[in-house]
């Protein structure tokens, strides 16, 4: 099934989740790596080009993901019986929100770094995203600082997100992680 139900994720949501997870992690590693490259490194120019291109594509992916999320029923937490579980569900929801906000901040700040001089961002030579010009003073520096710190902050929140998923899987032994990995039939979930 493509769409979500209240109990399970559809295949589209699952693909969106894992595709963005791997791309975000790859972008983090590439970003940290590329700023240390020496000027004569053969990858010096391509690293940034790939980072910017993938960044634009990722922002489109996340936009589509949010639209899809909005069009689909919200998948309910598996257990909400006790006040503690309900608190944990709220916290998990906050983590999800912060992940989305962090990504949006990274997209905007990354865009602002490279476009303050009027240059557009080219995406693998397929198309380019126009510059909005210099919107505020010291734009590239300020946006660059935000981009760096938010990237590290996002990594920390991703770790919390992963620990939460692993806790569900190994401690609570519930289907929270499993239902984001395989497309389950409603019947199997009810077992």
């Amino acid at each position, binding site marked *: 099934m493509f769409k979500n139900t209240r109990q399970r994720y559809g295949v589209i949501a699952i693909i969106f989740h894992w595709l963005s997870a791997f791309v975000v992690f790859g972008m983090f590693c590439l970003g940290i790596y590329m700023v240390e490259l*020496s*000027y*004569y490194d053969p990858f010096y120019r391509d690293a*940034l080009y790939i980072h910017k291109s993938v960044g634009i594509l990722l922002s489109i992916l996340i936009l589509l993901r949010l639209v899809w999320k909005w069009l689909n029923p919200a998948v309910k937490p598996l257990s909400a019986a006790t006040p503690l579980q309900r608190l944990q569900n709220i916290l998990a929801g906050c983590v999800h929100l912060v992940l989305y906000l962090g990504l949006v901040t990274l997209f905007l700040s990354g865009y602002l*770094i*490279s*476009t*303050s*001089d009027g*240059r557009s961002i080219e995406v693998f030579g397929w198309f380019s995203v126009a510059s909005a010009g210099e919107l505020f003073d*010291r*734009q*590239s*520096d300020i946006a*660059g600082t935000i981009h760096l710190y938010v990237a590290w902050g996002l990594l920390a929140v991703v770790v919390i997100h992963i620990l939460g998923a692993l806790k569900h899987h190994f401690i609570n032994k519930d289907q929270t992680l499993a239902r984001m990995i395989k497309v389950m039939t409603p019947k199997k979930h009810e077992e």
Partner: protein
Amino acid sequence: MKTPYLAAGIAALTMAVSASAADYTIDTKGAHAFVNFKIKHLGYSWLHGRFNNFEGEFSYDAKNPNTSKINVVIDTASIDSNHAERDKHLRGSDFLNVKAHPKAIFKSESITFSDQTHANVVGTFTLNGVTKEIAFDVKKVGEGQDPWGGYRVGFEGETQLKLADYGIDYDLGPASTHVTIGLHLEGIRK
């Protein structure tokens, strides 16, 4: 060696005429002054840029030119090579460290004219927190009344700096170890 006598003579002259020496403000307001730089790119071409924000003043008297003085303070964060990503890199810790060292300062110690228009300037230059003595030649471009009731004089000169001398050791390649700074300054008499 006549230099000590000359220096003593200049010193005496300085005291005698210091009241009449003209003081000039560098015309950054009207942008008739430029602090440019150029550095080789890979050894194949020149990359040009400039510092957009700086201020300074000098004193110069055509009758006693050797009493001249100059003082320029450059806002290092205003570096502009017409490329936002590169400028961000240049402001960062690989190059200018503008957060820690927001100002580059040149202060003359002596200015010695060899003729009406040519002079050698000796002074201290502070960049990236490092202060070194440098010397370079300058040339008077022109001098006179402006059309709006003021009086102006302009000088130009350039000097080459070794980046490593100022603690900038990012490897740009063997052809790019030095940067040329070009000063093109018009002063308005105060």
